[in-house]
């Protein structure tokens, strides 16, 4: 985690945003991210992000739930404490389907949500730099990372040309930290500029 320099361009309409994304990609600048108030379909593809594999994780969690339920009930009713219930078989698979199903769903859902929070760094008291407070309201905020050889002015000119309403430069922490949103934190002892 470190401080980095970013050029921030704010767009008001997704119709302007999409050509701008294409333009930035063509010139080869590196997106830090685009912050949007709602899921804009196709934006991930336009930015060149790969498809998420969160659903595969969900499937695996579900599988864990199924096997846990079946093996546990089998062990309890055939090995640990076999009970004679109306002379019915100890291994009563049809009667275990409801619990197996519920446990599958429970594991898949809980596992997926925890994984989602982990990979998106979402948790109470987690704080991240806000590039523009209206990014959760009505602005599409494109953030481009400035490397050593990136010309800040060129990027700004490009974003202005692409139709951004507001363009500025920010030096900010790129990762997350533990903090409160009503307070500004001193993250580094000495001011260092990337």
């Amino acid at each position, binding site marked *: 985690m470190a401080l980095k320099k970013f050029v921030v361009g704010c767009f008001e309409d997704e119709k302007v945003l999409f050509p701008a994304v294409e333009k930035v990609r063509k010139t080869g600048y590196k997106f830090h991210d685009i912050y949007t108030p709602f899921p804009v379909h196709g934006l991930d593809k336009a930015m060149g992000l790969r498809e998420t594999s969160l659903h595969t994780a969900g499937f695996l969690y579900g599988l864990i739930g199924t096997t846990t339920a079946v093996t546990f009930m089998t062990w309890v009713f055939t090995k640990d404490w076999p009970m004679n219930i109306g002379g019915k078989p100890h291994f009563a698979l049809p009667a275990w389907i409801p619990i197996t199903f519920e446990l599958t769903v429970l594991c898949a859902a809980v596992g997926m949500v925890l994984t989602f929070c982990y990979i998106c760094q979402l948790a109470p008291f987690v704080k991240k730099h806000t590039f523009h407070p209206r990014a*959760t309201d009505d602005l599409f905020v494109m953030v481009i990372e400035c490397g050593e050889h990136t010309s800040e002015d060129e990027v700004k000119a490009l974003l202005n040309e692409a139709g951004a309403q507001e363009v500025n430069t920010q030096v900010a922490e790129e990762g997350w930290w533990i903090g409160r949103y009503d307070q500004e934190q001193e993250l580094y002892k000495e001011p260092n500029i990337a």
Partner: protein
Amino acid sequence: MSVTKYESQIREPLVNGDKTYGQVTKDIVHTIEVKPTRLWYIGFYISAALLLFGAYSVYREVTYGIGQWNLNRTIGWGWDITNFVWWVGIGHAGTLISAILLLFRQGWRTGVNRAAEAMTIFAVMCAGQFPIFHMGRVWMAFFTLPYPNTRGPLWPNFNSPLLWDVFAISTYFTVSLLFWYSGLLPDLATVRDRAKTKLRKHLYGVASFGWNGSTKHWQRHESLSLVLAGLSTPLVLSVHTIVSFDFATSIVPGWHTTIFPPYFVAGAIFSGFAMVQTLMLILRKVMGLEDYITLGHIEAMNKVIVLTGSIVGCAYLTELFMAWYSMVPFEQDIFFKYRIAGPYGWSYWLMMTCNVISPQLFWFRKLRRNVLFTFVMSIIVNIGMWFERFVIIVSSLYRDYLPSSWSIYYRPTIWEIGFYLGTFGFFFTCFFLFSKYFPVIAIAEIKYVLKTTGESFKNDMSGLEEKELDSFVHEMHHDHHEEGSVKVAHH
């Protein structure tokens, strides 16, 4: 390829008025940022008072035992289990709206899903109280969980439908809560970023988990919502199926029927939508959300009500037919002597009127779009659905195989009623707090559908259909690389 989606002009807009994204945020978040109205306080205090009365009723039941209720032999299940099934049924609409309608791509769900999901969670919490306190020694409730214990270990009976219920209800509650809260994160972040006071910024900052609207996060969020919807769809059907197993796997005449699972699920959706209507109609009026919860939304829900009400009606008739067709005298007696007639006949006919006959009025479009009529009907339906559970439980129990133990009449005590009123208090207290402190409409989802279904944008789109058709045909033409193979219709 064009990124613009278009929607048929025939469909009515889901968001009325000339709205921008900023306006949507303001309309919905506004209620959180101002002091609640007098009406809100009145409602909140009444609910809190009911909740306190309920707490006292439960205190009596826990202290003096289950004898505080008028349950007897043979009516071991009375108001409490009736209330349990009733609340669980109500708790089905939220997940149905947010999950099943998401999979069916029903755009109108966006206006009502957030509040309906909250309602679901509160209703399931109310429902859970009844079987737990019915145990009598409520401090032993954890015995239902399969944990390694010093009694053997002795495990719960995994073949028992009552244990299936423990798993079903707790899973349903957990998954609904996760689904609801993960959907809330972006909207809580919206409130946080608009907050003017320090305390609000801090609290919503904590509650929104540091959400910032990153594209990658949205992509994962979409994937998460879709999979949770896919999981919740069979889950919501399984929960009321399993509740119906509590009855159907027994051999009590009147309960021992295979029609119970679909019949219970339809009934759950029916009563759940009625409760959603009751709450939504109040919410849109008190919060001024008529542009987001439109007459179109109300009509769509009324259509679901008339459909599920008719399914429930079919189930009632099927039950009667099967009782006659079975040629089992006990079945026939329960249905024809003790259910549709006898001392509890009035409850059967009340149920029939409220659930089957009166909702048929929703075949008229005028009535489906009438707010007052819908409100009255939603309450009638919920009364009817309470009596459905009462009829099923009590009329099957009050006359069993041994006429000497037939109970003449079962009347609840004030503490039994108090417990029920208390859950009402709990439900509405939670709902009032929710409507004050949370965005009652899914802001991000409304913004997502705004440009395709908002009123102002829809009007702009006339003629787009033709243009899109042309470009589509043009693309097809390119793909095929066969000159003249596609006939292009130019206007």
